């Protein structure tokens, strides 16, 4: 069969980084083609070039044997290419319909023709079995539904080549199966799908062929049926990979955190937490599993003093902490690895040593009366940076110039330096490559061995299952199920995550 897409010898450099080094990709019509690689391997760059979001330095792209040159997504869309982005490109305050027609609006005179839009969209969604309420606001619908909006957006634009950028990262296992079904039905109707992922299991489950990228180069192109996960892993990472962190035996100690009947509002002023209860003991990792938007971020914020509690109690070693601010939580022995390190974890314009000072700014030995002894801060930061293998020339560099992995290591170094009783880690490996993920996991496991109480919140179920001693499922602001690590099956947890326990 003829290749519908041929990308040849694509080279793309960013300042200081060679993102794509003579990458070639061939995709056949009507196949599901996986693009496998770690974060930073150059997958997204390659796809952004194909979609016209960035331009390449050199190389050629052929679509249906036509040489093309895209100056923007509009050109790509015109050639029948569409992309479902990892972070949804949806406007929360717009309706589903407005999101779908944006950029390609049917008009009657000056006015947007709502009736016509509705008819066209109903037709398409019916055809692919993806019915939905067109007049709902995107902010009010579930993540799975939002993804459908993204897919419908492509179909509405008549895309026959569809790029899915890590589409499963935020879905429950059930939703992933639903997505597979949709992809299958798309393929049956002659659509071509490029599926970007770093999850080997998914490659095996859904794809026809796979292209593996590493460090900006193509490592291999192979038929899925002629390979296996171990081989793919080796190609992707360049070495043997341990699939799970070793978990030594450890008896949980005394209770460190006890949360009872916790209520709090979310950022829109609606109820975010509705009577949540949990406890974490010393030397124990408790994982919070759940679909995004079920109260995880509110829980983390409340437990670190960043969000007001409406009612209920938070006890850290029997001290009541509800209604206390973030400073008090730090003082009580909490450390916090925030989910968005660029937003909450670091001040990108500050040098690294000032970032290390965050949270210690009013503590001995760094203070001298009203002054701060910055020499001492620099010295101390140097030690931390070495201990946590943060690769920087010196501690005066701006935090913003570090790679994602190094930034996260810096946050980890600072938070562990608090010698906390309770560690709250929220999505600690989001956006990191395999090496950095292993590092973070090891450190968290080490904290457990040292008798810290760890609360781990993650949208990545495999991470939760990998690390936790106990798994709590959060759904609509409440803990609705508890599993011990050894007795948990991901299908069961996934069922609960989707609210399966309550009819």
């Amino acid at each position, binding site marked *: 069969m003829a290749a519908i897409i041929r990308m040849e010898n694509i080279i793309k450099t960013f300042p200081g980084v060679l993102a794509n080094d003579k990458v070639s990709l061939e995709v056949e019509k009507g196949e599901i083609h996986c693009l496998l690689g770690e974060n930073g391997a150059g997958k997204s760059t390659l796809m952004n070039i194909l979609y016209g979001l960035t331009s390449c330095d050199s190389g050629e792209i052929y679509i249906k044997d036509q040489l093309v040159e895209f100056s923007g997504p509009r050109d790509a869309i015109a050639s029948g290419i569409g992309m479902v982005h990892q972070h949804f490109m949806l406007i929360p305050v717009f309706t589903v319909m407005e999101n779908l027609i944006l950029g390609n609006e049917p008009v009657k005179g000056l006015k947007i023709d709502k009736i016509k839009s509705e008819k066209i969209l109903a037709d398409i969604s019916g055809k692919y079995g993806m019915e939905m309420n067109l007049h709902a606001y995107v902010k009010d619908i579930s993540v799975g539904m939002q993804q459908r909006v993204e897919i419908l957006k492509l179909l509405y634009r008549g895309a026959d080549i569809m790029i899915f950028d890590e589409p499963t990262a935020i879905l429950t296992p059930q939703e992933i199966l639903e997505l597979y079904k949709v992809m299958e039905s798309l393929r049956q109707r002659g659509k071509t799908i490029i599926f970007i992922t770093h999850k080997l299991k998914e490659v095996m489950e859904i794809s026809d062929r796979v292209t593996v990228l590493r460090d900006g180069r193509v490592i291999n192109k192979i038929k899925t049926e002629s390979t296996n996960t171990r081989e793919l892993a080796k190609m992707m990472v360049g070495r043997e990979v341990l699939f799970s962190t070793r978990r030594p035996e450890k008896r949980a100690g005394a209770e460190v955190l006890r949360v009872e009947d916790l209520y709090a509002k979310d950022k829109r002023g609606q109820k975010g937490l509705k009577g949540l209860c949990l406890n974490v003991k010393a030397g124990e990792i408790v994982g919070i599993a759940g679909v995004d938007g079920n109260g995880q971020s509110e829980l983390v914020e409340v437990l670190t003093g960043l969000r007001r509690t409406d009612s209920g109690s938070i006890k850290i070693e029997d001290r009541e902490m509800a209604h206390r601010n973030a400073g008090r939580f730090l003082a009580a022995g909490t450390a916090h690895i925030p989910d968005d390190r660029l*937003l909450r974890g670091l001040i990108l314009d500050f040098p690294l040593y000032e970032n290390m000072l965050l949270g210690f*700014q009013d503590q001995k030995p760094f203070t001298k009366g009203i*002054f*701060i002894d910055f020499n001492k801060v620099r010295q101390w930061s140097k030690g931390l940076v070495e201990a946590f293998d943060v690769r920087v020339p010196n501690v005066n560099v701006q935090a913003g110039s570090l790679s994602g992995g190094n930034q996260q290591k810096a946050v980890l170094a600072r938070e562990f330096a608090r010698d906390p009783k309770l560690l709250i880690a929220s999505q600690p490996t989001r956006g990191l490559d395999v090496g950095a993920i292993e590092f973070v996991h090891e450190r968290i496991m080490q904290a457990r061995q040292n008798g810290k109480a760890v609360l781990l919140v993650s949208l990545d179920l495999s991470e939760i299952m990998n690390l936790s001693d106990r798994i709590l499922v959060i759904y609509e602001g409440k803990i609705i199920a508890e599993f011990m690590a050894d007795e948990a099956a991901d299908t069961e947890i996934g069922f609960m995550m989707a609210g399966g326990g309550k009819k």
Partner: protein
Amino acid sequence: MKKNPLFDIFIGNDSVFSFVKAILAVFFALIIVYFILLLTGYSPFPVYGALLKGAFGSRRCFGECLVSTTPLLFSGLGFAIAYRCGLFNIGLEGQITVGGIAAAFIGYIFPEMNPVIHVSACIAAGFLAGALWGFIPGYLKARFGIHEVISVIMLNHIAFKIAAYLVSMQGPMKDRLDDMPASPFIRDSAKIVRLVNGSRVHWGIILAVITAFIIWVLLFRTRLGFRIRAVGKNKYAAETAGINVKRHIILTLSISGALGGLAGAVEILGVHYRLFAAFSPGYGFDAIAVALLGMVHPIGIIASAFLFGILRSGSVFMQAMYGVNKDMVSVITAIIVLFMGMSAPIGIMIKDRFKRKSHGTSV
């Protein structure tokens, strides 16, 4: 990897690069104004000459230059500390006004007394009044989320109207013995002493420079300064680090307003000796340009306040000599602000280009 010495000297080093950008901003402003002067029928070089002569031509002229520098330095520092906290205080003109009102009031209401006590009391009154005028927008922002830009503009106008009322015909601070809409003169013991004979320059300039050093230490050496800068660069990270963001917004705007109040107080006590409406000719608005050109750094601001002092005092001479409206200076100010606004993104562009050149494709 190819080394580029020019890059290392002028662009690689952040503080030198800042300085280069500031010089370029002034340079471009002068070029654009050159053309404006040409178009409006003046010959630019003599006009610029007059500007310089007005600032340096004589001891008296230089004194006037320092007289203008003083309030510009105070208010530039005021703008800078707020800016470092992520706040845009364009309300310094109003804060100067209330500072002047308070200082003038204490200056004439009490009888002659020990000058140190009297001057200190007047300055303290100006400081507190300015602080109040900064506290209000700070509180409104922290408590109600009202953008400080809007509230300070409203407070500016309210301050102007209050000042106008106080010295109007039926106003309580009006000097009954004088037809001028102005307050009585302050007591001799409330006047800030002149620095040299034959010039209006007074000890306020020394106080302003000392204040600049205090603000420098405050911002870069103290716990409070660290917290202020953290809130300014990333309030979410600051909050996560246990810093009370709202409290620091209120505190910083109060300090910022207090510096404006100082500018007003010192202007009244050292130059005018009495209150009249609109006694500040827009120092509070120049403060924006002063601070931005000074790279929002107290030491840089000393230099840029001096530059604006030259422009302010020179422009009076320029107007007298050539009839060029002294508002030409505000055009220079605007262009400098525009360039400083552009300098951050353009600076990044220049750095990227140089980096790409020197790195090549070898990584």
